């Protein structure tokens, strides 16, 4: 069975990538919400927010990138849900293919779709005046963090994708993830927040990931943030992967 794992995953990946190219609206919808938020915050609220950096878009982009991923993975849950409901999932399960391929194809598709959305969002940010003097290694490090973050949230999205009873249920789980950046250093520095909120903001994953990406973009020392960020991403990835594969095994047993 496993001898076909890579071949089967590649075939199924080709299938879901076709889905994406034929419904490009999902990628655009994914990118539009964060872009609208970026426009709103930079051109409406931004003037009144004192972050200590020269331009607000400079400060804001890392958080917007995380929101892009958080809204993008709801489509992963959605696509998986449709496969489960449509009967094609059962067809795959009754065929002589590597069983984990079905999940991996969705996961890799999610990665590809989110990376495209991220590139679109960064492109708009550049038009809005975002500039970074960071070199290739720093950009690669940012990309690496975002890939890890996307993978972690994608595996998390697999769980509602497999278990949801309705389309709304499959995608609703991402709302809290989209709001998490608001309670972090993504939009405003945490030191203006009242005690308990600040304590939450400084100890949730988004703050450390945002700070690490921001430091990489501005060529500041990343300090301990990058390790905390990587710790959160890898930890979340492992937990989500274990839960998702356990859910999958229960589903197909």
């Amino acid at each position, binding site marked *: 069975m496993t001898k076909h794992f890579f071949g089967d995953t590649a075939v199924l990946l080709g299938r879901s990538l*076709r*889905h994406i190219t034929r419904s490009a609206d999902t990628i655009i919808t994914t990118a539009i919400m964060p872009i609208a938020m970026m426009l709103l915050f930079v051109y409406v609220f931004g003037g009144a927010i004192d972050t200590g950096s020269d331009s607000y878009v400079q400060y804001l982009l890392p958080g917007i990138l995380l929101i892009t991923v958080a809204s993008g993975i709801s489509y992963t849950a959605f696509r998986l849900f449709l496969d489960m409901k449509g009967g094609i999932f*059962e*067809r795959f399960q*009754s065929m*002589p293919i590597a069983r984990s391929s079905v999940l991996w194809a969705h996961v890799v598709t999610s990665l590809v779709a989110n990376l495209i959305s991220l590139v679109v969002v960064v492109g708009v940010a550049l038009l809005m005046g975002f500039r970074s003097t960071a070199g290739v290694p720093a950009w690669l490090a940012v990309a690496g963090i975002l890939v890890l973050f996307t993978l972690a949230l994608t595996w998390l999205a697999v769980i509602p994708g497999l278990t949801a009873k309705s389309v709304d249920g499959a995608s609703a789980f991402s709302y809290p993830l989209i709001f998490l950046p608001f309670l972090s250093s993504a939009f405003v520095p945490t030191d203006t927040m009242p005690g308990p909120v600040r304590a939450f903001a400084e100890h949730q994953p988004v703050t450390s990931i945002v700070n690490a990406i921001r430091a990489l973009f501005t060529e500041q020392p990343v300090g301990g943030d990058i390790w905390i960020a990587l710790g959160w991403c890898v930890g979340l990835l492992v937990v989500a992967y274990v839960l998702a594969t356990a859910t999958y095994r229960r589903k*197909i047993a």
Partner: protein
Amino acid sequence: MTARPTAAPVIHVRGLEKSYKALQVLRGVDFDVARGSIFALLGSNGAGKTTAVKILSTLLKADAGTASINGFDVATQAADVRETISLTGQFAAVDEILSGRENLVLVAKLRHLANPGRIADELLDRFSLTDAAARRVATYSGGMRRRLDIAMSLVGDPPVIFLDEPTTGLDPQGRIEVWQAVKELAARGTTVLLTTQYLDEAEQLADRIAILHEGRIIVNGTLDELKQLLPPAEVEYVEKQPTLEDVFLALVGADADATPRTTATSARTSSARTSEEGR
């Protein structure tokens, strides 16, 4: 019931039991299906037909009992069973965003066959879908979708096919199209196990019919054998009125496809009690 070397049944089911929590769905199901025959599992909604098919196609594990396909145990040799079977589930398992041809190529690739494109083209031709091959499945009618669904199950010529309520939700024309496809399958030597809640469907298609009721097979035999269970039919003369189905098919131009009209008529004649259909 040990396997005889010559006429060993291709599907062999003994004492199958399955419960969902407190609900006992299968309470000891036994049946055999001979190679190359069409076997109909007949039952009302909730009788356990789908559960039985899911166990046989390795999607569910039975609580008790054994089942084997082509000599492979469904529980312990699931991978071998999956090489042998094909499942057409209750809901058309087709990819709506892909075209009909892409769906077939996808399945051929997943079955690791050489030349997936040629296999797809042959099946498109056989199921009269060549004209629609490049269209997205989302634009197909119910009957076309079901035909594609069955065509996808035939990729790689698996010797055993499961059809779970293949005509539920289809209009009369779609139903006749599917019947035609199933008859062709059996003519080529494929073993077909189909479930249905329509009595005339079982009567039309099946070599053997088993009635599944409250988790048990209560009768199992050929149509003639089942008819023997009741007192012999009395000959009475009934004026044959066209049924609404005959009228409908005649009006909407079933002649576009020549075969349905004759099939529909013969379906009706056989239900008139006077003619005992020779099988």
